């Protein structure tokens, strides 16, 4: 695998990101990004990998906003994401040679989640009315705010790119957004845009695992019905 960069199938949602940020630059309107509403602790922590996926795509998005000089609003729902998001944005702007623009062109806004995600959702709805984003990118784990925010984004005329691995919310992104990253696609998006050989290699590894799973599904089904107790073998 060394030195050789594997070729990955293209994802429409990923390709739309530069276009939508370019549009924001043309129309002089900002970009909104959210890495989802899953924090690193508490009842939702099992979905934290989706937040990692959101942060990984944020690194790509913030480089583009730095390049195109477009204001970037990132909203988060958990306090621990504030320093993480800030450092991602800072490094991106630095790598584009625009470290000085971080304090003026980027905004990391926190809205709480208390009884439910409603305060976060209402904060973002209000923000959209005021900043009128041209591009709304949402990658991560989401709850009911998925539809609320994307419908409001539609009303504001934003190009919307959204992705999640949450079974209850992906349907709303598919219905309300222009481009979607479905399920596992969010976990490979960051690696694909990075073109980093190690990361791409790990995607090939993921594919290998899926082929093994398919073999287990089909083979296990046949074996189980031929009288071999495949299910108890899997118990190990």
């Amino acid at each position, binding site marked *: 695998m060394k030195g050789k960069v594997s070729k990955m199938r293209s994802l429409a949602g990923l390709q739309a990101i530069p276009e939508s940020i370019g549009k924001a630059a043309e129309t002089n309107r900002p970009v909104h990004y959210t890495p989802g509403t899953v924090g690193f602790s508490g009842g939702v922590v099992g979905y934290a990998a989706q937040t990692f996926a959101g942060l990984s795509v944020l690194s790509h998005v913030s480089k583009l906003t730095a390049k195109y000089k477009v204001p970037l609003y990132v909203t988060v729902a958990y306090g621990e994401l504030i320093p993480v998001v800030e450092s991602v944005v800072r490094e991106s702007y630095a790598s584009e040679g625009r470290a000085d623009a971080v304090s003026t062109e980027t905004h990391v806004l926190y809205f709480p989640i208390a009884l439910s995600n409603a305060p976060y959702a209402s904060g973002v709805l209000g923000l959209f009315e005021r900043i009128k984003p041209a591009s709304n990118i949402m990658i991560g784990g989401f709850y009911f705010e998925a539809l609320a925010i994307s419908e409001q984004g539609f009303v504001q005329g934003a190009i919307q790119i959204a992705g999640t691995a949450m079974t*209850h919310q992906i349907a709303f992104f598919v219905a309300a957004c222009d481009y979607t990253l479905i399920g596992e696609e969010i976990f490979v998006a960051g690696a694909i845009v990075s073109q980093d050989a190690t990361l791409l290699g790990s995607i090939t590894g993921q594919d290998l695992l899926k082929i093994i799973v398919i073999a287990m599904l089909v083979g296990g089904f046949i074996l189980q019905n031929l009288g071999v107790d495949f299910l108890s073998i899997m118990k190990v």
Partner: protein
Amino acid sequence: MSGLISKLENVDRRVIYFVLIIAVVAVLLNPIGLPVPVTTPTRRYHDAIASLPRGSLVLVGIEFDAGALPENGPMLEATMRLLIKSNQRFVLASLWSGGPAVARIYLDKLKTVIDSSGKRYGEDFVLLPYLVGGETAAAALAKDLKNTAKNDYFGTPVTDIPVLKNVKDAKDFSLAICITAGTPGVEEYLRQWVSPYNMPLIAGALGVAAPTYIPYYNSGQIKGMLQGLRGAAELELIIGAPSSAVSSMDALSAGHLVTIVFIVFGNIVFLVKKYQPKGK
């Protein structure tokens, strides 16, 4: 003609909102009384409670908070009414921080029902405080109730509460009920109450979550289930105490119909436009 069609195709979303509001309000004020057939999972939920011997001890897990009140609340209300009506004793417990506050809302609401039945707090039922720790707390409660909740919600030591006098662990309960809006909820009860103690469990689930619990119901790990507000309405009808869930049913139908009519309407306009001869 084509001007009209493109106007219809891009009908302002606010028109949809307005129609939806009118439909729901009109039906709430003038209920039609569409039949609500009782489904098997609800019937079995009811029977699991009603068939218990009088005076059995039941655990009621209030695994939701204020955000789920509209859907889980009527389930809890109907369940408490049924428990009182069938003369069971019950323990209200919660792994959700907002759970005990929810319980208080319904204890207040059902005050007259409770008083007229002669049931008394502490003797026939009790409210435990919020149990911190999710699944760990569920396990601890099942293993040793009195050491997990040392006091009740109002601060009385559990050793001084008559209904808990002879309670040691899960084996002293005849049934567990889990009314839940998510995690911790059904899965935690299955792992910590059903598997180790063979406890019969019935559940009240949100409409969105109910399909995910169907496998447990089919396999018999959950004996009965209320599915969404519809399930609560069915239970209200069985016990003869129609309340907020039943009165919502017609409005629910109206809301669904409005949504479907707009989908169909949108497609008719879309297809008419597509197959309209061009150049006219």
